[in-house]
């Protein structure tokens, strides 16, 4: 039995103090993607494009799943995922990324000190041809040290038994 909508909205949000974003962090990300856009690497190119200097790839913050040093390996679930970011109803199930909707605010620049707030907004089940699926929908809002909105991600995680 899944909790009611009322119970879902009353659950507390998870707050992640991400800390300071550095150029190395997001440049490694861009290299891993294979996206060598100069606005991530070259201050002059970024300034010519109207930015104060290099900026992070638009989906950098929202793609990083963990921001603390841990968890230590024994504390991961059997599939390697981190229990903390998953609602209890889908922990230990087979997980797949369902979809993401990003709304962008200010660009993410080196030195930005970022905080993320994750809140569950919906939890529902759908019968699929290969069994019952649970959908967990969360909003994750990222802001910087001045309270400026950087990006919001509405994330859907699909869990199968």
């Amino acid at each position, binding site marked *: 039995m899944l909790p009611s909508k009322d119970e879902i909205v009353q659950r507390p949000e998870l707050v992640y103090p991400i800390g300071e974003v550095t150029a190395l962090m997001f440049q490694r990300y861009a290299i891993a*993607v294979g*996206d060598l*856009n100069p606005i991530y690497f070259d201050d002059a190119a970024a300034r010519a494009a109207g930015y104060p200097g290099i900026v992070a790839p638009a*989906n950098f913050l929202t793609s990083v799943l963990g921001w603390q040093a841990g968890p230590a390996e024994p504390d991961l679930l059997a599939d390697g995922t981190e229990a903390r970011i998953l609602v209890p109803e889908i922990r230990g199930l087979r997980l*797949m990324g369902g979809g993401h909707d*990003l709304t*962008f605010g200010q660009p993410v620049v080196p030195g930005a000190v970022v905080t993320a707030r994750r809140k569950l907004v919906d939890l529902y089940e759908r019968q699929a041809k290969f069994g019952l699926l649970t959908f967990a929908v969360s909003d994750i809002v990222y802001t910087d040290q001045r309270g400026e909105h950087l990006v919001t991600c509405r994330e859907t995680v699909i869990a199968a038994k």
Partner: protein
Amino acid sequence: MNPSEIFFEDVAVGAELPALVKVPTTVQLFRYSAVTWNAHRIHYEKEYAIKEGHPDVLVQAHLHGAFLLQMIGDWMGPRGRLVRFGWSNRGRAIPGDTLTCTGRVIDKRVVDGQHLVDLEIVETNQRGEVCAPGQATVALPSQEARQ
């Protein structure tokens, strides 16, 4: 990278974006998991992925999104700005798949001085199967603003 700059006035509804072709490797998946602190075993441990019913290790959901974003960024140029971007993970992809990102302009409008263009985008594999459909809204520079 597309070195030329696109202005709002240059864009026609129905126009196609230049396609971006990506062939993810196990090295790419490993590095992407590493930089995103994603220890989910389905992305780097083939035996485990097979145990979960997958044919091989899987391309990360966010990497599909990153490929689509790269295509948009190459097309809109450095002065374009993303307003919204969303995608769904509809089909699995594994290392060695040829993933082609394509896109099309479906609307353009001026709202509060912003020159907005709506895009329909999709990533398909070498068999033509849809892996990741999505949509985006970008703000483009305007020729008017330049004058």
